[in-house]
């Protein structure tokens, strides 16, 4: 029943501890928020799950499969078929020198799609799902605006319909009105597909809008977890109380 289970996850960079003893579960179709200030280790947790960096200790299982010990080929497969990622910085998730359709095509090609016309059609369909006009499918990703790039990342992440999406500060570098549109889109995609998500953000508003449950991280540790509403209305930990009291 558990989709993702993280147990005792610890990651150090040199002498600096990025996250320590982080444990949580994500259930199918659920949106889990991870909130904390920059440097709290929340992005590191996401990077460990997406296998961008290897955990020093602990276990991460996705549908029962241990991720921390997979080889490079399996890792690539998992990242195409079992999870998708939306980075804060689109340049990390996209090849900006390639067309929008091509960025999506990369995932489909990894899934052995070998019909250019069908790949392009599927790319167009995925782009329309993230509300990008069909006539932009062949434009270079570098020609896309910030908000459009996040949409493209979402389309790419969803290309093979993985059961888990990881969103790392998906709207933090966007203008306010664009942020709102992207958050609506994420909500809509969740309603339509039921894909489970882990959303990392420093913004309580984003977490309130998207997440059913929330973890609060501070200095590499999970200091609190609960139903999002409870974390925001009745925070238990001193840091969370400060965070909630400080939010606009």
């Amino acid at each position: 029943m558990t989709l993702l289970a993280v147990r005792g996850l610890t990651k150090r960079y040199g002498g600096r501890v990025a996250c320590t003893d982080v444990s949580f579960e994500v259930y199918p179709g659920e949106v889990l928020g991870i909130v904390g200030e920059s440097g709290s280790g929340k992005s590191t947790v996401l990077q460990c799950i997406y296998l961008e960096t290897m955990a020093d200790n602990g276990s991460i299982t996705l549908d029962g499969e241990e991720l921390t010990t997979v080889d490079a080929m399996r890792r690539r497969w998992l990242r195409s078929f079992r999870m998708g990622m939306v980075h804060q910085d689109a340049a990390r998730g996209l090849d900006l020198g390639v067309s929008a359709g091509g960025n999506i095509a990369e995932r489909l090609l990894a899934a052995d799609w070998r019909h250019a016309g069908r790949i392009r059609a599927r790319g167009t369909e995925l782009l329309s799902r993230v509300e990008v006009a069909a006539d932009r499918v062949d434009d270079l990703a570098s020609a896309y605006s910030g908000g459009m790039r996040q949409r493209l990342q979402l389309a790419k992440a969803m290309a093979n319909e993985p059961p888990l999406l990881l969103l790392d500060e998906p709207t933090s570098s966007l203008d306010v009105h664009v942020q709102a549109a992207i958050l609506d889109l994420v909500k809509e995609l969740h309603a339509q597909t039921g894909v489970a998500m882990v959303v990392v953000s420093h913004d309580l508003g984003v977490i309130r809008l998207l997440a059913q449950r929330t973890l609060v991280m501070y200095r590499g540790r999970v200091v609190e977890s609960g139903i999002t509403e409870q974390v925001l209305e009745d925070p238990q930990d001193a840091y969370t109380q400060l965070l909630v009291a400080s939010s606009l």
Partner: protein
Amino acid sequence: MSRLGELAGDATGYSFAFLDEHTKRELRRRTLKAVALPGYQVAFGSREMPLARGWGTGGIQLTLSLVGPADVVKVIDQGDDASMNAVNIRALVTKTTGVRTTRDAGEATLIQTRHRIPDSPVRPGAIVVLQVPFPEPLRLVEPSDAVTRRMHAERDYSKMWLYLYEDIVRYGRISLSYRYPCMVNGTVLMDPTPIPRHDVAKLHQNPTLYLFGAGREQRVYALPPYTDVVPLDFEDHPFQTERAGAPCARCGSDTSYRTEVPGQGWLCSDTAYCDARLGVS
């Protein structure tokens, strides 16, 4: 006789086939490894040759490591036995071995070639050595050697596929005309060298042993007889060979690889094949 010649003397001169025995043995070991791993690029210690790098030093080292007194050697450059490069390489082989040479692909036991595979059938059991300017098929999409090695190891060729997809998006077709990437035995991506697609199509399940030598890049790779060599393509954009505008203006062949020569029309690129059809030698 020059001063240098006097010093060297005939008796103390070069080894048979220029390279010393240790070097030849090492090259043959490397070649055997390449044959055992079809399409895989095996590193070898490329020697200084009396040829400029980029003029076939990889091919000639393979040829010299394999040639024996009983061999009959053919050397061609873009299908032509008479081009300067071919003539020079042939001269080096004969001068250091004394073996017989030929223009006839059906007679040669060892063929060194640049950018073409003969249109005439190759003699059974013969070895074809191709000169390789760039052995790495992924160079087109990835500048780093460390990364391309990892990509091969993980059979991660999605970037190459993406390149072809983008080509179709941009030009409506796959525009690659030479160095067309091929999957070998379904496992390794290989650069077949700048042979035309006409020749790429011949590599699949071919009865001949093909060796590929890159002197500058110090790599050797191989296609043993009857290897699967499948060009990357899409269902709706299948791999296609070049189409000549007309049969050969000289011999009338409509199956050979032909190129258009200004003022002369379409001509066979394989001159020995064309001559043979006309009974000229």
